[in-house]
């Protein structure tokens, strides 16, 4: 068989078809061979390597260099390795590629990998190490192994170039001064180590706080030192913190551009409030956020924001918000959040849509405790009362978040104070608003919308406040709220909790005493009183309460005709210490007289009466006895000798009455003053030698007020004002005794009394006046409510003087006169306008006739066509109208009601239907209900009456 390959035939053998046909394996071989060739060509094209030659082609070398220059060190290294495999002439190229690779790795912060590559180079190409010095130094510097880097400097005979190279490296690469100062390869006194140490200490000092100029001298660092730029940097930082910007700029200009300190130049630009185009790294941002001067850029933006908020216009606000967002970009995140929070809340109050303002601010504020606290405080400062209600709800949100963020512990002091604040907020809301909000909560729940915003419960919060911070003021607030809102059981529970929490406080006991007394539970009341006495026997309220309770107990026994029990009570009463001489004894004698009446013991009656009259006089005795007879429901008036006022001297009558009133005040008795004595008493008050002083007159006046003797009380106020002492109290008395129609004088007197009490700092009187203003009282036949706004209405000294002057002149009890307006009334002030419309607007009672425009003197033609314009003008408030209509409806008969219902079913509105049934369809202001003008019947001609007679 012929061989396939020629032997020794240098010129080749002609391949014939017969080969191929005969040798299938050859066919396969050829195929594989040519395919491999083709692949080699392809590879050679992509790598630029000449696939066919062993020598390096210039373009191949160029390719590698290009990749190195373009920082594609990985590809350059791979290609260089391939070339090196082909030809050892590529060694230099490969070393360069290795070096480029190491530099790239170092720039990426991969010092460990760079070190590994260096190890490979050291192992395989030791001759190339001198070319790796720079990289090696960099790796050492990254590793903190500056010893090796600077070690050559210890040699004084080191070549200048080498020294320069190392110093350049130090200038350009070394950032750890402390490490440099600690290198062991240089002696301790080496200038480089000394300079590095001084610079490290100075750098620490200047970045931590103010430093003296002397500390910045840094004599150890020469101008030519590779660390000279550090000296300039430290001085620049010091100038920056001292706000010496010009000096700071000068020092920054001296920093070498290729030095390590030069890396701070971009950050300095931004920190001083200027803009920079280049992008900053995260470390630079952090430095700027902490140490930058944000105020310089923020102040103008915030001033613009403030102006926009005052304009209350949406577009300027949103534009200004964007400005603030941009100006605060470099700021500390906490400051940005704070600004965002304040701007969002204030914009929200101006009804700027939250999505818009949030977008302008670069994001919504976090709903954390700080946010809710700010929102709650902002709502509290709003003028409308709903704001305070919303604030109470938002405080609840604040509490929830604050507990999560550990601002304070649940149940602690801060929690207690917060709870008290929330409770007081809700407690001071108007009842109507609270009711409305509660209804809204119920409605939410019914609709399946959850509970919605819930108004905090004052009871819950008061309890939490008093549990967390048991304090008299907190408990007092709770008690005051409970008194207004709750039943006596609830109020007593609060008092009991107070008593248990603070056993040393007497107020809860005094409340419990009064509460039991009001329910006539005298035994219980006395038991509480006993405990109060243990705390403070000398307390005036305790002493008065004791006398009052013992008296009430005796009176009850007397009313039950249990004389033996009454005597026991009298004995106990008689042992009480005297406040005013003889009063207790007199009271005991009076009560003993009553006991004698119950027992039917006339002798004892006479004896006790004698004792009593000897103690307090006939007049006082008489008043005391008639009062006790009334209180104990004893009917023994006939047994009492009458006081004949015609014979008694007026002054004796007066002094006796005053004495009785004083006793009554001490004992808590409302004395009965016979109305027939009023004139004599009034006359006695005006006598020049009237012995009664101002305090005694006030007691008489109060007694007269309680006895429904307005003329006597008025006279007391007149005499008191004329005397010019304790004007505040006499004005207060007068204000309460004036009739309701004298409203202007009433308001004047009340305001003046309050003002005088404030000037005198008479807190007791101020409290009484304010309590009075907040109550609805009765004045004669009419329910009257004082205007609580009097409490906040300021009154000038001139007004005060005018009121006093005029009231002093008006000594007589006023008689109704429609046009009576005191001279001190401020006609321009609507609060003092007494016209029916203004009174109706204030919610005060107004006689319906006062609202009638008709002049009774004019002829009233019921056929007049009444238009809508006739009913123009202020009408009574809706509540009043509703009340009146309800009254009318109550008075209708069943038949009328049925007629009205039929008309309503037929389509009439209720008022029209009522009018048709009740009034026959007249006088309605509704045009649809207006009656057509009926033709007047013509009167008969006079002559026609007599027709047919002539």
């Amino acid at each position, binding site marked *: 068989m012929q061989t396939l390959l020629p032997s020794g035939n240098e010129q080749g053998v002609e391949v014939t078809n017969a080969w191929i046909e005969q040798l299938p394996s050859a066919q396969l071989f050829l195929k594989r061979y040519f395919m491999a060739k083709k692949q080699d060509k392809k590879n050679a094209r992509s790598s630029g390597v000449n696939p066919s030659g062993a020598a390096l082609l210039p373009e191949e070398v160029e390719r590698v260099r290009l990749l190195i220059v373009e920082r594609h060190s990985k590809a350059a290294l791979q290609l260089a390795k391939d070339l090196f495999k082909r030809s050892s002439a590529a060694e230099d190229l490969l070393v360069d590629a290795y070096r480029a690779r190491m530099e790239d790795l170092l720039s990426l912060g991969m010092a460990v990998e760079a070190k590994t590559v260096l190890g490979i180079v050291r192992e395989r190409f030791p001759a190339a190490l001198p070319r790796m010095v720079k990289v090696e130094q960099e790796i050492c510097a990254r590793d903190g192994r500056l010893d090796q880097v600077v070690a050559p400097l210890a040699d004084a005979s080191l070549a200048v170039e080498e020294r320069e190279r190392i110093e350049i490296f130090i200038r350009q690469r070394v950032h750890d001064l402390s490490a440099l100062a600690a290198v062991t390869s240089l002696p301790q006194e080496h200038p480089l180590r000394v300079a590095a140490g001084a610079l490290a200490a100075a750098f*620490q000092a200047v970045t*931590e706080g103010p430093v003296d100029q002397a500390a910045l001298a840094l004599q150890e660092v020469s101008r030519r030192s590779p660390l000279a730029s550090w000296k300039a940097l430290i001085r620049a930082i010091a100038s920056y913190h001292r706000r010496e910007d010009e000096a700071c700029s000068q020092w920054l200009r001296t920093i070498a551009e290729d030095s390590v300190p030069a890396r701070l130049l971009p950050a300095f630009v931004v920190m001083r409030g200027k803009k920079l185009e280049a992008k900053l790294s995260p*470390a630079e941002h952090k430095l700027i956020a902490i140490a930058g001067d*944000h105020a310089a850029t923020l102040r103008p933006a915030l001033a613009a924001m403030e102006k926009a908020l005052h304009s209350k216009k949406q577009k300027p606000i949103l534009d200004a918000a964007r400005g603030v967002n941009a100006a605060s970009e470099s700021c500390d995140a906490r400051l940005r959040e704070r*600004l965002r929070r304040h701007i969002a809340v204030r914009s929200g109050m101006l009804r700027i849509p939250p999505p818009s303002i949030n977008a302008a601010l670069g994001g919504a504020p976090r709903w954390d405790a700080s946010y809710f606290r700010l929102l709650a405080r902002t709502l509290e400062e709003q003028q409308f009362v709903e704001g305070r209600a919303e604030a109470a709800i938002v405080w609840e949100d604040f509490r929830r978040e604050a507990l999560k963020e550990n601002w*304070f512990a649940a149940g602690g*002091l*801060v929690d207690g104070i917060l709870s008290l604040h929330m409770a007081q907020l809700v407690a001071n809301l108007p009842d109507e608003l609270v009711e409305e909000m509660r209804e809204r909560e119920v409605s939410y729940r019914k609709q399946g919308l959850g509970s919605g915003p819930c108004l905090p419960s004052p009871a819950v919060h008061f309890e939490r406040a008093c549990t967390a911070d048991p304090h008299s003021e907190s408990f007092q607030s709770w008690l005051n709220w409970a008194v207004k809102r709750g039943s006596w059981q609830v109020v007593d529970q609060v008092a009991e909790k107070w008593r248990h929490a603070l056993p040393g406080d007497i107020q809860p006991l005094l409340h419990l005493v009064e509460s039991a007394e009001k329910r006539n539970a005298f035994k219980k009341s006395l038991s509480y009183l006993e405990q109060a006495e243990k705390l403070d026997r000398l307390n005036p309220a305790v002493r008065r309460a004791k006398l009052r309770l013992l008296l009430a107990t005796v009176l009850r026994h007397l009313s039950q005709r249990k004389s033996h029990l009454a005597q026991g009570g009298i004995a106990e009463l008689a042992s009480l210490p005297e406040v005013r001489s003889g009063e207790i004894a007199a009271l005991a004698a009076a009560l003993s007289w009553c006991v004698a009446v119950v027992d039917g013991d006339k002798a004892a009656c006479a004896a006790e009466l004698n004792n009593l009259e000897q103690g307090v006089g006939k007049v006082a005795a008489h008043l005391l006895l008639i009062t006790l007879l009334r209180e104990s429901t004893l009917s023994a008036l006939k047994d009492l000798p009458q006081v004949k006022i015609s014979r008694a001297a007026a002054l004796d009558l007066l002094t006796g009455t005053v004495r009785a009133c004083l006793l009554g005040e001490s004992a808590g008795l409302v004395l009965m003053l016979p109305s027939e004595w009023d004139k004599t008493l009034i006359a006695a008050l005006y006598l020049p030698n009237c012995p009664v002083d101002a305090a005694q007159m006030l007691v008489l006046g109060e007694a007269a007020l309680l006895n429904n003797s307005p003329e006597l009380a008025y006279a007391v106020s007149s005499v008191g004002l004329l005397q010019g002492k304790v004007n505040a109290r006499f004005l207060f008395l007068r204000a309460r005794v004036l009739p309701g129609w004298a409203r202007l004088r009433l308001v004047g007197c009340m305001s003046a009394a309050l003002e005088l009490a404030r000037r005198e700092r008479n807190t007791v009187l101020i409290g009484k006046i304010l309590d009075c203003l907040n109550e609805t009282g009765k004045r004669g036949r009419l329910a009257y409510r004082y205007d609580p706004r009097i409490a906040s209405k300021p009154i000038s000294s001139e007004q005060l003087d005018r009121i006093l002057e005029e009231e002093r002149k008006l000594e007589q009890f006023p008689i109704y006169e429609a046009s009576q307006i005191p001279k001190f009334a401020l006609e321009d002030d609507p609060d003092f306008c007494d016209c029916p419309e203004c009174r109706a607007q204030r919610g005060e009672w107004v006689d319906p006739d006062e609202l009638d425009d008709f002049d009774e003197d004019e002829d009233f033609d019921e056929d007049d066509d009444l238009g809508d314009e006739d009913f123009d003008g202020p009408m009574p408030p809706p509540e009043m109208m509703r009340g009146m209509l309800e009254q009318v409806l109550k008075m209708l008969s069943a038949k009328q009601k049925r007629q009205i219902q039929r008309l309503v079913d037929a389509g009439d509105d209720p008022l029209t239907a009522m009018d048709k049934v009740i009034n026959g369809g007249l006088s309605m202001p509704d045009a649809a209900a207006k009656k057509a003008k009926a033709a007047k019947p013509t009167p008969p001609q006079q002559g026609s009456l007599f027709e047919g007679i002539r």
Partner: protein
Amino acid sequence: MNQNTPDPYRVLGIEQSAEDEQIRAAYLAKLKQFPPDRAPEEFEQVRDAYDLLRDRRRRARHTLFSINPEAPLESLLDSTDTQRRFAGPGPWLAVLKER
């Protein structure tokens, strides 16, 4: 709270979490720094700050209600000490370490 009243914690140089002893110590230190004869205004501020913070209830009320919603926005800058704060060497070195 009056918007012109300085923050008592800043005046005494203490944190909001400071306890009674720390508050008192800070007060005494500030008294030495600002005696009444040499720095009467600062002394008054220090004294007012201590009066506010030494009572636990007043301190708690300050924590809760001292924020003034009507304060001008610029006043927020004063409280956060935004002006060229001393950051310590760390943040500066972090920038220097970068290439």
